[in-house]
């Protein structure tokens, strides 16, 4: 799966988790760009991404992420293992 496909997949996940089909998922997207991106929603988002990709992340890996682009890089790195 290339990066473009990851963004398409993540767009579906974001729309579902935030119940908002207007969210545009870009590498620069952060929690401050989405009104309802609070701590519980963040947990749901990470859990939904783990389920979608059948991957497990550590709390430290998640804490280091600064934006969606870094999340995609983490997904790619984990998927390649």
């Amino acid at each position, binding site marked *: 799966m290339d990066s473009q496909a990851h963004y398409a997949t993540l767009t579906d996940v974001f729309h579902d988790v935030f119940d908002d089909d207007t969210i545009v998922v870009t590498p620069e997207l952060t929690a401050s760009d989405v009104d309802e991106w609070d701590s*519980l929603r*963040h*947990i*749901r988002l*990470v*859990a939904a991404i*783990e*389920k979608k990709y059948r991957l*497990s*992340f*550590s*709390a430290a*890996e*998640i804490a280091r992420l600064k934006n969606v682009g870094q999340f995609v890089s983490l997904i790619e790195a984990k998927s390649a293992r």
Partner: protein
Amino acid sequence: MLEARALSLCELTEGQSVVIELSIDDAQMRQFAELSGDFNPLHTDDAFARGKGFKGRVVYGALLVAKVSQLIGMRLPGKNSVWASLTWEFLEPLYVDQAVQLEAVVSSISASTGLVELKLTLRRDGKKLSKGRAEVLVVD
């Protein structure tokens, strides 16, 4: 006062389950009517319920959900958890004083977030009466 279990995230595994046996008696039905303000005769009047095609008073659905709360808060995972979501489907009615089993099975665990998903099933004599899913956040 009953003591809640306190399972931590590392003590949970996918497939782990808990079953509680329960039945809803007349006193609980009356208490729930007072608490909820729902005096729908379907739940309070046997004759009315039979007139609607049921075998008697139907147990309040939300009273069953209260038992889910008991299961999560007291047994799986217990006091280190907070309920995050619930979907629940009523398939068949439950009647007063019928013995049923409420089962929760851990269906997924997110170690990075502490979010645990439980698959829930309510059965009477092996027959599925209700089913659902709950998300629980485990805070160690």
